[in-house]
């Protein structure tokens, strides 16, 4: 049995060798991947409570993609326009990030300053 996650723990995820372009395009268009996934989790939990999705979703799902999303993909217009779907997540304002980065001296280390990219670079 895996150790339960505590706040601040890492979760590491790997894409499949044969990941669908749709999933990859979505991942590549996020500016904050963890927060976007968090949003999806929040929606799922709000709708269905906490459950192990593996018991409820088919293993082969390539064909079950929603019509609208599939169409956007067909015509090469993957989520680049703001507000085109109800699930659109506004990106964190860049200005806010810049301000945080340029703060030269901090007194206390941030709790969670290691991200997936950091981990990936050491594998």
């Amino acid at each position, binding site marked *: 049995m895996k150790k339960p996650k505590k706040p601040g*723990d*890492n979760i*590491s995820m790997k894409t499949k060798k044969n990941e669908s372009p749709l999933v990859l395009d979505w991942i590549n268009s996020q500016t904050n991947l963890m927060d976007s996934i968090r949003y999806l989790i929040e929606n799922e939990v709000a709708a269905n409570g906490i459950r192990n999705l593996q018991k409820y979703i088919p293993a082969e799902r390539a064909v079950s993609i929603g019509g609208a999303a599939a169409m956007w993909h067909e015509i090469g217009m993957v989520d680049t326009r703001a507000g085109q779907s109800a699930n659109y997540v506004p990106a964190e304002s860049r200005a806010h990030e810049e301000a945080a*980065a340029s703060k*030269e*001296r*901090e*007194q*206390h*280390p941030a709790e969670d*300053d*290691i991200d997936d*990219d*950091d*981990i990936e*670079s*050491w*594998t």
Partner: protein
Amino acid sequence: MQFHFFVGNDNGNSEHDIFVDGKLIQQPNVNCAVDELPWSEEQAPEGIVKNLQDQLIVTIDSPSARPGMYYIGKFALDSGELLDAMQVGLDYKYDVDLPIVNTLGQIASVAVQKAFEEDKGIPEMIEVQVDMATALPITQHTDEASAKFERKFTVGPHYVTVHLGKLRVTVKVVFDYAKVVPEATPVTFALQKDEEGNWREGDIFDEFANSYELQGNFNGSYFKDKRILHTDIGDGSTEYPITEGNKLLRQFVHGSNHGAGYAIEEALNEFNGLIHLPDSPRQFFSDVIKNPTHKYHAKAIKTLRRPLEGQAKQIITNIRKQLTKARNEIDVICVYGGGSILMRSILHPMLKELCEEREIKLLYIPPQYAVTMNAKGLDAFVRGKIYEALKERAKQAV
């Protein structure tokens, strides 16, 4: 009796710097295989435990090294026996027994000490679970080599008998997971944070903060997103990796076979001539270099100067190559390692000039910290989140 230890392990060509359970041990990285214990009469085990690392004798039964009895580190060096050491520029660290034997020996020595402190007695048997981060020189670090080196530890269990006089303590060492990284790369973590996980502060940064007028209470948070070109000058190799914050930039990994060891080998003949000896060991020469009051100190320094200059020039050439590769997009060049101490008077002015020309800052680590940067980095790495994530992945893959 059971322990769990985090181990940050820097197996240098000349010195073994290893953090075991937060305790730093610095020993000459040598050992010798022996046939019997050196004592003829009883020794009080309690007397040996306190400074165990200075009189460390172990019998190793491990799948990864030649079984037998060994003197480890300082005790081996002082014994006058035939030493096994890593040959500068010749030995591959992942192929030889020495790093395995000396690492197991030091881990076992700390286990014995900890058992003694905790219950004031000496048990017959101790089990230690180990999480370890260690490194290979960049010139030797390939996926295959690091996997091979990791396996030598994790294939266990290893049984180490620690000899306290005639008394024996068996330590069973099991490596839960071991990660081998390119040497020098984890130093980025040691620059940012101290052992408690707070931003690093103190006189290690004084010269740097003053020369660039980085006012205010300067601390390691300065480096958390900086691109650092490391220059880790060892005895047998120099490493030039580039890190960006907590990331290792794989495309720039580079190392070369230069270091203080080559200069010493080159100077040794001339030195022996000057002091009218047919030959004297490298170790003697090193001791004379480190000891300014020795009567031959001036002669030793004199013979060393030109070979050191040669090495320093080669190192600068390699640094320039790295800068070109990275299009000068480097914030800080950070210099450390045992060789950086000897070469300081030659390298520092050259690098200062280079850094001004390219608009880069120079952090030349002060001598009192230069040697242990790697061990500190590995210790920070093994306790950190990245190691934890890598370990979890490895466990899931099985």
